[in-house]
């Protein structure tokens, strides 16, 4: 998949790297015992440490370390046994310390890999540069008062993982696929809920462009806080086009931070003076370096669940699914779990079909997720089972499925109640076939006269007469025998 921008001077390639801030799932904050719970009253989840009262000392939450290591292992990354928390100094009203405790020279996780699932079942590896732990800032509320900004420190000090990719991404679609995959991985791992709407996953996008064939990287621009996958893709398109135009007009792109405005479809510079990037990092004297033992890392590794890539490979290899179906099913943990329950002991391909076509269609229509599905995984599996053993035809199964969606009943019960069992008794089918032929002598002659296509009409009539319950294969055979025999 190539994505090139046609400029006046030729074709331009887009180079993108993503910095994703993922909120760590933990009970307490990174350096204090205050809660991370979402939706509490303003400043209720704040300890004296989070408010940066003089003399307060940070103490590292062991869960944050464990979650970062777990995520690093999920990204097939190097876990650094020695890492250091540093102070990133800047002033902002929602940063009470006057510095953010982050990691700079010695992050807890080094280089890793995220494999993208692209259209058509193809895949591509994107490098991870690093993952480090840092504190979130508080929240500024600007619209409550014309002259004042309100500050809520509930988020101040919540642990974040900043996951930095290498500049390996070349298209907006790859950026989208990267974010979806990263989100799937952290959700499988249980290290971040991946919810971009609520801000527990946020992305900064680094964009540069270069004439096709050039190997040097040109100056990059950072587009801040783009809060949905769709916006990330749009922001890349818009910013790349702006840069191509600027280069072609002989302007120099300056390294700056810009904000994406989805309403106006543009990026614009943040006021750069106040945000002068001079963070004067230095090791935080309140915190000792973090040292991890090999057996600690190995113990976490043992608890990792099967991750999307491995699961996908297994579904293809053991169950014979197509790469496309497999990547759809493993895209999130709930879908994968649902599928595996439903497919237990059934025809996996057929279950996959029912899930990705019928169930997804129904869920989309209702606007609910798979965790709220009115049809349980066991029942969907049972429905496929009824088709497999010939109890009902696939056509009847569609009606049963509709019923299941409405009533939440088990398919067996619905088939029983409504008498939908497929008629496989050849005597019974034969009787219907004979009746239909006797009732339609004209059409029967037509078939006998050589118009074999008209046999399809007879199949339809017999199915109708049996209320869809006759086995279509048997009907076909019987008709052929009787009319063409």
């Amino acid at each position, binding site marked *: 998949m190539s994505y090139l921008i046609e400029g006046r001077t030729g074709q331009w390639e887009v180079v993108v790297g993503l910095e994703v801030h993922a909120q760590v799932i*933990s*009970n*307490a904050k990174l350096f*204090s*015992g*205050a*809660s991370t719970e979402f939706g509490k*009253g*303003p*400043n*209720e*989840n*704040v*300890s*004296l*440490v989070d*408010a940066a009262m003089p003399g307060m000392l940070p*103490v*590292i*939450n*062991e*869960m*944050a*370390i464990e979650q970062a290591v777990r995520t690093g292992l999920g990204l097939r990354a190097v876990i650094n046994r020695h890492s*250091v928390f540093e102070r990133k*100094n800047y*002033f*902002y*009203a929602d940063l009470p310390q006057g510095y953010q405790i982050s990691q700079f020279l010695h992050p807890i996780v080094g280089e890793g890999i995220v494999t993208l699932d692209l259209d058509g079942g193809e895949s591509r590896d994107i490098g991870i540069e690093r993952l480090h732990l840092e504190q979130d800032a508080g929240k*500024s*509320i*600007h619209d*409550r*008062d*014309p*002259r*004042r*900004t*309100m*500050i*809520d*420190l509930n988020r101040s000090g919540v642990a974040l993982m900043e996951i930095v990719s290498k500049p390996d991404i070349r298209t907006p679609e790859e950026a989208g696929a990267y974010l979806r995959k990263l989100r799937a991985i952290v959700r499988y791992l249980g290290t971040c809920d991946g919810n971009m709407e609520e801000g527990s996953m946020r992305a900064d996008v680094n964009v540069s462009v270069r004439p096709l064939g050039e190997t040097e990287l040109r100056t990059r621009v950072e587009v801040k806080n783009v809060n949905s996958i769709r916006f990330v893709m749009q922001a890349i398109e818009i910013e790349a086009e702006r840069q191509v135009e600027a280069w072609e007009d002989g302007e120099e792109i300056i390294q700056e931070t810009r904000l994406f405005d989805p309403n106006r479809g543009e990026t614009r510079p943040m006021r750069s003076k106040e945000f*002068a990037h*001079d963070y*004067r990092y230095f*090791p935080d004297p309140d*915190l*000792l*370096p*973090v*040292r991890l033992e090999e057996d600690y890392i190995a113990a976490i590794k043992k608890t990792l669940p099967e991750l999307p890539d491995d699961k996908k490979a297994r579904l293809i290899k053991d169950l014979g699914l197509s790469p496309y179906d497999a990547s759809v099913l493993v895209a999130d943990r709930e879908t994968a779990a649902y599928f595996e329950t439903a497919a237990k002991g059934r025809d996996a391909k057929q279950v996959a079909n029912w899930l990705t076509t019928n169930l997804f269609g129904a869920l989309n229509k209702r606007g609910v997720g798979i965790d709220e599905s009115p049809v349980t995984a066991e029942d969907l599996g049972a429905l496929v089972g009824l088709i497999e053993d010939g109890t009902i035809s696939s056509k009847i199964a569609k009606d049963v499925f509709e019923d299941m969606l409405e009533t939440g009943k088990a398919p067996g019960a619905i088939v029983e109640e409504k008498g939908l069992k497929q008629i496989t008794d050849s005597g019974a089918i034969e009787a219907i076939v004979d009746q239909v032929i006797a009732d339609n002598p004209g059409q029967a002659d037509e078939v006998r006269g050589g118009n074999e296509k008209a046999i399809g009409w007879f199949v339809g009539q017999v199915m109708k007469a049996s209320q869809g319950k006759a086995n279509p294969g048997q009907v076909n055979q019987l008709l052929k025998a009787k009319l063409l025999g």
Partner: protein
Amino acid sequence: MSLNEDDVRKIAFLARIRVDEARLAPLADELNNIVGWVEQLSEVDTNGIAPMTSAVDIVTPLRKDVVNDGDKVEDILANAPDREGPFFAVPKVVE
């Protein structure tokens, strides 16, 4: 390494400390004295020695992932120069 008046002006800005123009030159001298004094350390040959990050050889203490703090809005806001209900209030920060 030597600091000039511009450096001092910038450092003061980054630290949000107001320094009168007349004080820049003397401050630069004072800072240069301090830096010069510390720079004597570079005379020590540290080749092949890992940087020391702490003077004490102890392992980082960690806390359990337990919520045992918070719910003290009044304590948190007690010294705030301005507040609005449960919020800190600060002069408007323009987006």
